[in-house]
């Protein structure tokens, strides 16, 4: 019995210690003033790696999710004869929720795990150590550009996801199921507010981008430098990022859209 309590205590201490390490790590990454001359090309390359290369999966998923929303929405709404509200339903769901959240989940799986594995492998092959011994801070040189890249790429991806999704929904609703195009867009425009809906969605994705990138680079940097350690760090990145995104989504939704 006492052993159980002790192991629970140890778990708690481990969690607190790891939170503390990740906080200190973040402070170390952000404390450095980015040097525009050397920093910019590194940042561009990382945006390419985490953003542009994730574009395909984001566009395809967005298209399908939008199409499914169109189909499901039509089936439900046509029971009440209000299938013209389909545009509004698709747009609000995507812009407020699915855009930021699904993009963040895809990002964690596609880019986050790659970031963790890359940094973990750099650690395992002593590249980070050797950089440190050359008088170059790996936190600034390796980690910071990746963190900022995630932060920048995520909202871009989320916005593209929403647009593609709405287009997919229109494809199904208007082209296939025959909802009037005018009422599709009209309903959408009268119910979607730019600041309250679109910008709040963008703010969500900015937060998610930061958290996902932070978790990914920290897990890579903090991993045990063996193959088992890297694989467990990669798993942790995906699991923790997904949980953090879903949890934060609830909190942010409550703050942004809740009536209190």
């Amino acid at each position, binding site marked *: 019995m006492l052993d159980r309590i002790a192991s629970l205590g140890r778990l708690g201490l481990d969690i607190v210690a790891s939170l503390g390490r990740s906080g200190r790590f973040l402070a170390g990454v952000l404390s450095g003033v980015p040097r525009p001359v050397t920093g910019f090309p590194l940042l561009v390359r990382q945006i390419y790696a985490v953003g542009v290369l994730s574009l395909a999966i984001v566009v395809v998923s967005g298209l399908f999710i939008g199409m499914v929303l169109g189909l499901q929405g039509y089936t439900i709404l046509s029971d009440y004869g209000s299938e013209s509200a389909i545009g509004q339903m698709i747009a609000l769901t995507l812009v407020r929720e699915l855009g930021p959240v699904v993009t963040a989940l895809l990002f964690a799986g596609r880019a986050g795990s790659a970031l963790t594995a890359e940094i973990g492998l750099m650690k395992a*092959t002593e590249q980070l150590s050797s950089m440190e011994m050359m*008088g170059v801070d790996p936190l600034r040189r390796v980690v910071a550009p990746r963190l900022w890249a995630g932060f920048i790429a995520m909202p871009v991806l989320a916005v593209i996801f929403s647009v593609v999704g709405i287009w997919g929904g229109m494809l199904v609703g208007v082209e296939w199921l025959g909802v009037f195009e005018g009422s599709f867009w009209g309903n959408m425009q009268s119910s979607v507010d730019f600041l309250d809906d679109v910008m709040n969605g963008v703010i969500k994705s900015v937060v998610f981008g930061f958290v996902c990138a932070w978790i990914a680079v920290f897990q890579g940097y903090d991993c045990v430098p063996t193959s088992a350690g890297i694989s467990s760090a990669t798993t942790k990145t995906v699991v923790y990022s997904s949980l953090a995104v879903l949890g934060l989504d609830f909190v942010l939704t409550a703050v942004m859209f809740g009536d209190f």
Partner: protein
Amino acid sequence: MGSTAYISLKDVVFSRSGRRIFDGITLDIPRGKITAIMGPSGTGKTTLLRLIGGQLRPDSGSVQVDGHEVPRLKRKALYTLREKMGMLFQSGALFTDLSVFENVAFPLRVHTKLPEDMIHDIVLMKLEAVGLRGARHLMPSELSGGMTRRVALARSIALDPELIMYDEPFAGQDPIAMGVLVKLIRDLNSSMGLTSVLVSHDVPESLSICHYACIIADGKVIGAGTPEELKAHPSDQVQQFLQGQPDGPVPFHYPAKDAGQDYGLGGHT
């Protein structure tokens, strides 16, 4: 402090995850000479290099490099000091996303503001010194183990450091590659006046090039001096290590309970 000692460690105690790795090590590494640090695997030879490089801090004791007390240096000063150090890692630690040329150019690009054509010339010079000028367009994944280490060596001397530390340079090398490395280490030391620290457990190679050697075991220095002095050292432990005898003061068996007890024999005690 003595004018000849470039690095001096005094009563260094260091432990990691509850295990005491160094238990009061005192060691002087003279300027401009090759010093070999030898010892059985797992005695923390690499840890020693990390202490010198400031990547780890000792629990107590002092680590001085060129008159600077390393554990007390502020971040910035530490990074400045490291520009004078080169370190050759066991795996080479080349940046896998950069070509051989860019790997060697990396420290120059980060720490100097030299024009591109000058960087080009310096990199070729350094690659020439390790005999790999022709391999400059290759990627690290296309290199053999020995070549990787030679490129890493070229990279660590790119900034003309005062000190270079070799972490197990001979481990896992074929005889030819080993011969090349031995020659390179000796040449670099004599031509550039480098202070070299060599961590290794390859006794004959190390002893053949070093001016001084010291042997570490059980967290202590058990023998130090010139290669000749060591070969005539009275300690059994030193002799066992130098001659590679399987059993001796360092037992063949990892410390264990009495065998009878472990196998469940011998009844209750």
